[in-house]
């Protein structure tokens, strides 16, 4: 129980540091906030002072920071400078297309990794698969996307070139995002399988006359899956970062478009919200993964 509380406490501290760091980064930004909000609109001293009172920019920095933390803790991420709308609404609208892409890519990548790690046990198959993994992991995701686009959309016309209409439009982006994930996961799973097959319980299972496939799936795989669970947070980061790029390649709506537009127009509340939200999800996933570890592996509970 103490270990669980401690783990959750650490997660909260990390989250607070992350939110603070992001806020400090915002303060360090050159140029005044008022200029950004005014933008190309009407610019008079009266409007400026109105903006300053409305956004609370005349308060001391410490107060603004505490206010930001308080609101963030309550799910209020502020208002977009440019669109003059709550950031949570903007992000909320665009989260679904990205989630769709990320989830289908995750499922596809994990399945592919499981199949590859379990079926390429023979030395030559292993060689081929390892090489493919290296290539896929080293290739920029947008190149994979561009190659798939030019083959399947331009040459054969099987899938739409861009947009987010129907399942067909999801196939190529999901595959593009899934391939690098599958590459890394296969490597991790294969390592785990190798290690599990060296353990005494494998000898026992084989001695009981179990088929090799049963040894692999029922005994070794369980052990190999454990280290893969710690990659949950990493997986999320890759999915989100990859989605930003892949949404560009395939002209899909989503968080990536929102983020890039915000970065280009210096709409800091939106950038900050996306960054802090992604840190939140990362920390939650990592904490859950660690707790799951404690639950599954009694050896860790003792230390």
């Amino acid at each position: 129980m103490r270990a669980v509380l401690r783990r959750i406490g650490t997660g909260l501290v990390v989250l607070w540091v992350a939110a603070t760091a992001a806020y400090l980064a915002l303060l360090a930004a050159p140029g005044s906030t008022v200029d950004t909000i005014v933008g190309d609109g009407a610019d008079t001293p009266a409007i400026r002072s109105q903006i300053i009172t409305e956004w609370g920019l005349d308060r001391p920095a410490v107060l603004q920071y505490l206010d930001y933390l308080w609101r963030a803790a309550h799910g209020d991420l502020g208002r977009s400078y440019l669109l003059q709308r709550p950031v949570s609404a903007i992000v909320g609208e665009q989260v679904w297309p990205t989630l769709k892409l990320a989830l289908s890519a995750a499922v596809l990548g994990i399945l592919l990794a499981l199949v590859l790690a379990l079926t390429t046990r023979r030395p030559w198959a292993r060689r081929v698969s390892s090489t493919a993994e290296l290539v896929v992991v080293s290739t920029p995701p947008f190149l994979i996307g561009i190659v798939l686009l030019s083959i399947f959309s331009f040459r054969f016309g099987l899938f739409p070139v861009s947009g987010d209409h129907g399942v067909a439009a999801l196939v190529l982006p999901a595959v593009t995002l899934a391939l690098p994930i599958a590459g890394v996961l296969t490597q991790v799973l294969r390592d785990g399988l190798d290690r599990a097959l060296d353990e005494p319980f494998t000898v026992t299972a084989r001695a009981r006359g179990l088929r090799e496939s049963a040894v692999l799936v029922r005994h070794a795989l369980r052990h190999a899956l454990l280290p893969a669970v710690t990659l949950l947070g990493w997986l999320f980061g890759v999915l989100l970062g990859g989605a930003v790029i892949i949404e560009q390649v395939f002209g899909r709506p989503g968080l990536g478009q929102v983020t890039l537009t915000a970065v280009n127009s210096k709409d800091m509340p939106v950038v900050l919200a996306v960054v802090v939200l992604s840190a939140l999800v990362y920390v939650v996933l990592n904490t859950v993964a660690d707790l799951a570890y404690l639950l599954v592996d009694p050896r860790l509970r003792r230390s």
Partner: protein
Amino acid sequence: MAIRPGVLAAAAFLGLAAVAAAVPSLLSGDPLAADPLHVLQAPSAAHWFGTDQLGRDVFDRVVHGARHSLAIGLAATTIAVTAGVLLGVLAGLSHRYADEAITRGFDALSAFPLLLLALLFIAIAGPGTVSLIIAIGIATLPHYARVVRAQTFVVRRAGYVTQAVAYGGSRARLVVRHVLPNVLGPVPVLAMIGLGEAVLAAAGLSFLGMGPQPPSPEWGAMLSDGRGYLRIAWWASVLPGLIVTLTVISLTVTGRHLQHRFEGRDPR
């Protein structure tokens, strides 16, 4: 110990890339020379990688792009390694609470996905080569810091450190003479593999338009340029992309080989 042909090929490619980065004019012509009469031509003997939408030779641009792409990766990795080593040693030698504070800092930094952290930085500092370098440097720093911190923990308990303390040398001398050299061991190989990641990240961010601005022949930016002509001229975007892939694979393969060798394992 035999060196596998794959590793040799990777090392050879890296050598070539280094030459391209150092003296690009040795290998190719002018990367900015536009030729309106030969726009979007397929690869041929005259233009190995074809030409782009302005009639510029894609091969020349790729060769000159090595300087941009590799320099960005190298500079970012240098920042990450330097800061990572310093912070890692500091955390490893610090008192419990200071160590805890620094480590939580790394944790917080790695809670942001690399690409988003870089984008946050670029949103603040504006796009460009320097922003890109610092952004990637900061984002990849925790990786090195963690390894060095763990290594420092081992070293500080070593006999020679205890002895140096007993001899009454100054703290600075202790760190520079005894701790640092023994902590640095795994760093160069890590940095080599990390360089591949940095090049990949830089290409991704340039692809999004956050890096060197046109007409710089940076690899990611070239891909982004050529994307609009994908239907009629795949080479203008796919070939620069393949060079990125080759570079990253070569760095990883060479790095892993050195890693296995360094750890005394059989290089696989």
